[in-house]
């Protein structure tokens, strides 16, 4: 063991060697400790933060793999964009990955305004507005119904409520094809078959299981004592829902809106079954434009139409970012 005197000397020596101002005290302290412990030699070993290699084998593997995969995921989007900006002659000659030599927006204009879908030739615009007229009321109606359901299931359970909920969740797994025709009959009976309102009802029905689950789980996770306090305060079913629960649940409503906008906008099956050609949603129209057998295939118009159809969900996706992820993860993992 070093005597105090030698320790003092060591320190002075050390202080002289140390780069000025760099964690002087800390290093001295550590040195002092190691000297006290009687292994002054350890001071020659590794010290400070462990060096990291930016280009370690592991990192090259990880980033390399991720980069290749990212390219695979981005390629179709890239091809869509460049194809939609080329003229048909250039498409016939060149390859699909090469950037356009001459940028033209004509395919976009044509896809939007004059592309033919079977009988009429007024482009995707009709489908776009149909989709808007379907999506907006469907989102509002389905969320309104499902959130009240979830609230009733979480806070006001009554005899049989759990049974109906179980049927609802099981129903989410039944292939839609099984219920397609019975719904045709129901809609015909109430006079909504072929109308946009009918499709809104269908979307509200099929959105109900997942949304109800989402809201029920969320409301059940809120402190039960809040609900009790509101009851002692004299608030009833609707005033607790509107004045306590809804203001506390903005995030879950946002998640539900995102989920519903993308889901309903992207629907094809219900659109094709429950609407008529003049009320077809955008996805059905896109399919009809691209896969129509008559005429010459105009790939650039097709790609422009595809991009136009994908635009709304993509915008929602890029704006909502993490909320979108959280929504699908929450909706799925908990289910």
């Amino acid at each position, binding site marked *: 063991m070093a005597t105090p005197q030698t320790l003092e000397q060591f320190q002075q020596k050390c202080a002289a060697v140390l780069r000025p101002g760099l964690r002087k005290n800390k290093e001295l302290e550590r040195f002092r400790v190691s000297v006290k412990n009687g292994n002054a030699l350890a001071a020659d070993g590794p010290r400070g933060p462990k060096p990291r290699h930016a280009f370690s084998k592991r990192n090259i593997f*990880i*980033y390399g793999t*991720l980069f290749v*995969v*990212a390219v695979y*995921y981005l390629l*179709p*989007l890239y*091809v*869509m964009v460049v194809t939609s900006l080329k003229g048909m002659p250039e*498409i016939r000659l060149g390859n*699909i990955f090469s950037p356009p030599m001459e940028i033209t927006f004509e395919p976009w204009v044509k896809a939007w305004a004059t592309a033919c879908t079977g009988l009429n030739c007024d482009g995707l615009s009709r489908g776009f507005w149909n989709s808007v007229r379907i999506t907006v009321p469907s989102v509002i109606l389905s969320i309104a119904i499902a959130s*009240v*359901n979830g609230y*009733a299931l979480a806070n*006001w*359970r*009554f*005899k049989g*409520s759990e049974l*109906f*909920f179980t*049927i*609802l969740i*099981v*129903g989410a*797994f039944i*292939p839609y*094809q*099984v*219920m*397609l*025709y019975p719904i045709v009959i129901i809609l015909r009976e109430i006079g909504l078959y072929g109308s946009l309102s009918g499709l809104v009802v269908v979307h*509200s*029905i099929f959105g*109900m299981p997942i949304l109800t689950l989402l809201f029920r789980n969320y409301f059940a996770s809120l402190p*039960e004592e809040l609900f009790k306090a509101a009851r002692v305060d004299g608030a*009833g*079913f609707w005033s607790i829902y509107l004045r306590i629960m809804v203001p506390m649940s903005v995030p879950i409503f946002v998640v539900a809106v995102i989920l519903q906008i993308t889901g309903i906008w*992207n629907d*094809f*099956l219900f659109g094709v*079954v429950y609407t008529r050609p003049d009320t077809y949603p955008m*996805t059905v129209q*896109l*399919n009809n434009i*691209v*896969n129509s057998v008559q005429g010459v295939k105009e790939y650039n118009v097709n*790609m422009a139409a*595809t991009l136009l*159809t*994908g635009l709304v*969900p*993509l915008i929602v996706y*890029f704006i909502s970012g993490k909320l979108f*992820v959280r929504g*699908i*993860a929450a909706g*799925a*993992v908990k289910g």
Partner: protein
Amino acid sequence: MRHFTMSSAARRPSRLFRNFSAKIASVPMILTALVVFVGGTLWTVLYSFTNSRLLPRLNFVGLDQYERLWATPRWLVSIENLAIYGILSLIFSLVIGFVLAALLDQKIRFEDTLRTIFLYPFALSFVVTGVVWQWLLNPDFGVQAVVRSLGWESFAFDPLYNSSIVIYGVLIAALWQGTGFVMCLMLAGLRGIDEDIWKAARVDGIPAWRTYLFIVLPMMRPVLVTTLVIIAAGIVKVYDLVVAQTSGGPGIASEVPAKYVYDYMFFAQNLGQGFAASTMMLLSVAIVIVPWAYLEFGRRR
């Protein structure tokens, strides 16, 4: 006692009016559950035993529709396609999804950007996906043409024009659309694992891949099972992708059951066939779901 229960009113005058607002508010849910889900399903199953053609008629013919169904080549091709597509997309989306999630979980930079890239196809509709991949796999302009123009003249990759491999072309598009979602679920599962597990494994000197395979993966069982069920339920419903990408062609090579149902119900005006086919779809889902539901929920009781 976690939920506040309002049931079992002891000596209340009327049970019906207890909790009346909640009952009124639940009417849409009750109607949906009973009329559409239960009623609709029973109706379809019932009418699958009739010879309904243009309109549903209660003229029972026993199992005739099912016999005819299983004698139709198109249905057999559909089932075969669904089996190949289903098994492969289950395996590939789970494996790719998990590997991507594990890679993203390495505290890497640009994680948000990469996740955004992997997930954006999931925001797109199947119709958009199908159309894009139809274009990419076009033998005259797409991947095949590009590779050939690079000098490899004999290169052949035209799944959409080759009956024997067309279903793999659909599979590629489906994986592009859906694996990002599986990755997200897996990532959520990985993030849910206790940090201390990793510390313990590190102290014990267990390599990362072993920790993933033998410790983390078994711990993620609930997430895996849910993911599996979600993918499986989606597989049976696959319809719009095929319609947009191949229209079932070439010939009937890429037909799927959902398309069979739609075509017989709304084009061929043979409702009975459509009902029988959709009942078979229901049966196949039940085969997947019932054991799962039993394992997940049955044991708890």
